């Protein structure tokens, strides 16, 4: 049974149908990359997988749990890092991670939080409010949450944006380790060069439909 399973997913904004019968199944250790033009529905699909949007039609299971019935449990098994980092500017990196840990029922000790901040290279900024951070530093801190727990699903929307070379290398290494531990990654990206370093399956979104590797794509 696939770790992530989506069947017949439809989503509309008012009368505008964005997703039209999406089927996606990914086994543990797989990385699916969503490709497609702007407005093709990549971010909407990620928002649905993150449970941020309510399912309008279709079925979505993560690790055998149906989102429609076990939304809270599914949320405890995934991490979503999108265009926004969901960080609070008035809190320090440690406080932001502590906030995240407590809201996800994780019993992360101070040392674990510190190690996560060190691992993303922000140890010099441990006591600074996040509002002074650059976009790249914020992205690193947002990804440090991945080091606090072992989710089943990692959702990334344009993860390479704002990251420098070192950050990209760190991110690819982190994703590789995550996949080796049996997680599933779904990411939307316009950056094929940087994804190339990762083992992945490309999926193309076009007019609300998802075309998997090897499927004929209408031009």
């Amino acid at each position: 049974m696939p770790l992530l399973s989506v069947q017949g997913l439809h989503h509309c904004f008012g009368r505008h149908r964005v997703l039209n019968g999406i089927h996606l199944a990914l086994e543990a250790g797989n990385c699916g990359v969503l490709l497609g033009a702007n407005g093709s529905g990549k971010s909407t699909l990620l928002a649905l997988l993150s449970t941020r949007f309510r399912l309008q039609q279709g079925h979505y299971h993560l690790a055998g749990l149906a989102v429609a019935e076990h939304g809270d449990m599914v949320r405890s098994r995934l991490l979503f890092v999108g265009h926004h980092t969901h960080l609070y500017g008035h809190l320090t990196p440690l406080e932001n991670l502590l906030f995240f840990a407590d809201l996800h029922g994780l019993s992360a000790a101070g040392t674990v939080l510190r190690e996560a901040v060190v691992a993303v290279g922000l140890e010099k900024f441990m006591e600074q409010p996040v509002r002074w951070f650059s976009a790249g530093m914020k992205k690193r801190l947002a990804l440090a949450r991945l080091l606090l727990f072992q989710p089943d699903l990692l959702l990334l929307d344009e993860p390479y944006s704002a990251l420098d070379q070192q950050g990209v290398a760190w991110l690819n290494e982190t994703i590789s380790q995550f996949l080796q531990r049996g997680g599933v990654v779904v990411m939307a990206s316009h950056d094929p060069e940087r994804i190339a370093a990762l083992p992945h399956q490309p999926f193309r979104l076009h007019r609300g439909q998802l075309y998997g590797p090897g499927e004929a794509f209408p031009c």
Partner: protein
Amino acid sequence: MLILWRAIYRIAWKDVVGDWRRRATLSSMLFFAIAVLVIFQVAFDPDRREAARLLPGLLWVTLLFTSLMGLGRVFQGEEEDGAFEGLLLASVPRGVIFLGKWMGNLLLTVLVELLLLPLTLVLFNVDVWGQVPAIVAVLFVGTLGLTGLGVLLAAMTQSARSRETLLALLLLPLTAPLLIAGVQAVAGLVQPGLDIAPWVRLLVIFDVVYLALAPWAFGWLVAE
């Protein structure tokens, strides 16, 4: 259960710490409350008897408008970097998020109340110091419902263009029964001989109704 309490505490902590570091809501609530009281004192210049008669209404009106100021900012901090979306992705039930936001706002409002009451008594020269604990208790019971409904309405209006006006328009009529009960209960404490029990019961009923429905309504409200 401990996990849920920790989440509620952490959200409230984040809001209170944020307000303290930004010196945002609490200071403006306090300045506003002091300004209202001073204006009333200068405008009416009441004698002691008149002041005792005015005190309950004055306290609650000041409290209502001061809380409106705080409520208008409850979700402002969540606009930063998609923080509200982050909150909704937490693995706790959405009602828990509501309770955390409510607790944070309640703490700030109660703090303002505790400073407001002695200031009012001094400014208006009303000698009911013996009743202060009872008045604080009544104000607290009323504030539970006022902030409970207020935080829900703040969530409802947060994406509206003129959200502060809309919040006031919705909150004022919906809390009118609670305010009447609060004013009558404080009046009973200031002017002996009046029975406050029915009014306190009414306050408690409103608290129970608002606080039982609000977490559920919040969960429904934020689901897209």
